[in-house]
């Protein structure tokens, strides 16, 4: 289930115009992604941490989100220092740890964490629906915005359908194992989800047609060029 753990709040960051937050997050992550100097990276890291504090987010939850990139980081630290060519820093048996390798790893780590924190503090502090509308007002093509919003809306319905199907399987004694029966059942389950989703899409489209849909979405939100929302 998709959750919006940071969307509710009353901090000064929650009060900023979503458009402004999206643009800042985008520019900031561009700068961080392209920067090579450690000084720039350190400053941006501090700024991102400050923003998270400003947003008044639950630190434990933020750390939990950071865990999601931990595996990726671990992989980089396990591979890059040993394979990157350059000045020798340390020797572990037959393996050589190089200085440029370690520096590259450190850069990648700081960059990823800073960008993630920036998005947690600025973008995940709005609801998906606010995000969609803000993107629309930033002149992102309407079809993409609607795709985001509709996906978000119907992910829940599809998830409920998935839950219903798995419950139906369980109450009839299904236990997954390493056998053809299990694989076939899972294949049926996934197939059924696709079939249901496509039939539902047809019904939703019918419902939209009944309400005069002619292929154009109109937005209720008016353009207000202000910093505060």
């Amino acid at each position, binding site marked *: 289930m998709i959750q919006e753990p940071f969307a509710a709040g009353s901090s000064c960051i929650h009060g900023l115009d979503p458009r402004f937050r999206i643009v800042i997050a985008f520019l900031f992550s561009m700068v961080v992604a392209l920067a090579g100097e450690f000084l720039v990276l350190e400053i941006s890291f501090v700024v991102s941490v400050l923003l998270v504090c400003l947003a008044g987010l639950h630190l434990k939850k933020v750390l939990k989100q950071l865990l999601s990139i931990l595996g990726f980081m671990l992989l980089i630290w396990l591979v890059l220092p040993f394979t990157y060519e350059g000045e020798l820093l340390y020797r572990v048996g037959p393996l050589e740890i190089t200085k440029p390798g370690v520096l590259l790893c450190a850069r990648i780590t700081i960059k990823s964490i800073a960008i993630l924190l920036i998005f947690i503090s600025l973008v995940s502090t709005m609801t998906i629906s606010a995000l969609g509308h803000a993107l629309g007002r930033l002149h992102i093509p309407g079809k993409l915005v609607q795709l985001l919003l*509709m996906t978000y*809306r*119907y992910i829940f319905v599809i998830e409920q359908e998935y839950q219903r199907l798995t419950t139906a399987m369980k109450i009839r004694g299904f236990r997954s194992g390493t056998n053809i029966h299990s694989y076939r059942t899972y294949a049926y389950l996934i197939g059924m989800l696709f079939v249901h989703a496509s039939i539902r899409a047809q019904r939703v489209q*019918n419902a939209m047609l009944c309400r005069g849909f002619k292929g154009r979405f109109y937005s209720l939100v008016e353009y207000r060029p202000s910093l505060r929302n």
Partner: protein
Amino acid sequence: MDKKSAFINLKGICFGYPGSQPDVIQDLNFTFFRGDRVGLIAPNGSGKTTLFHIIMGLIQPTSGIIEIDGEEIRKPKDFQAVRRKIGLLFQDADDQLFSPTVLEDVSFGPLNLGKSREEALQISRDILGFLGLHDFQDRITFTLSGGEKRLVALATVLAMEPKVLLLDEPTAGLDLDTKEKLIQILNRLDLSYIVISHEFDFITAVTNHIYTMENGKIILDEELHVHRHEHVHRSGKQPHKHV
């Protein structure tokens, strides 16, 4: 407006789903007048929902004539005008509510009809108020309960300001309170409608004619039927009559 002019007139409609015999709708004739409140009670699979979808132009019949508001509908494009006049409430409210918030969803129809933002908002707020859903404007549609979803879906249909409603099993899955609320709302509405339902009590509370479907046709079910059913009450052993 002449209260007794035919609003929906169906002549010789036939339709079958591929791979299923016989056709679900066979040579169906039906006239619906302005001011009518009609119930349609019939077994599953007898073509009730199909009939609604044919009226709305979501399904094309293999043959037959459809006249809405005195005009024959020939091209699929003609149905755009029909959908302004007739509102369809779907069986599953989840199909109908696709916008993030309630207010956006209710305004979707009016905006499609070319209303300005202010007008659309005004209409939506009025409708929500009429249904007693003032506080629902900013609620997220998928977090609503089943009963709330149904009422909001009804609001989205009413916001189109239709002349006739088609209600496809509006009480399915509703609790007694919400059902009661729906009965009150329907009786307060100054609209004609056709209701599909399996619930006899509900249908008699909101309509004045009851039709049924048999062999792909619509039949008026007005006569009284003598019927027997087993029942329990005190002193039931004594000979007695129910009238």
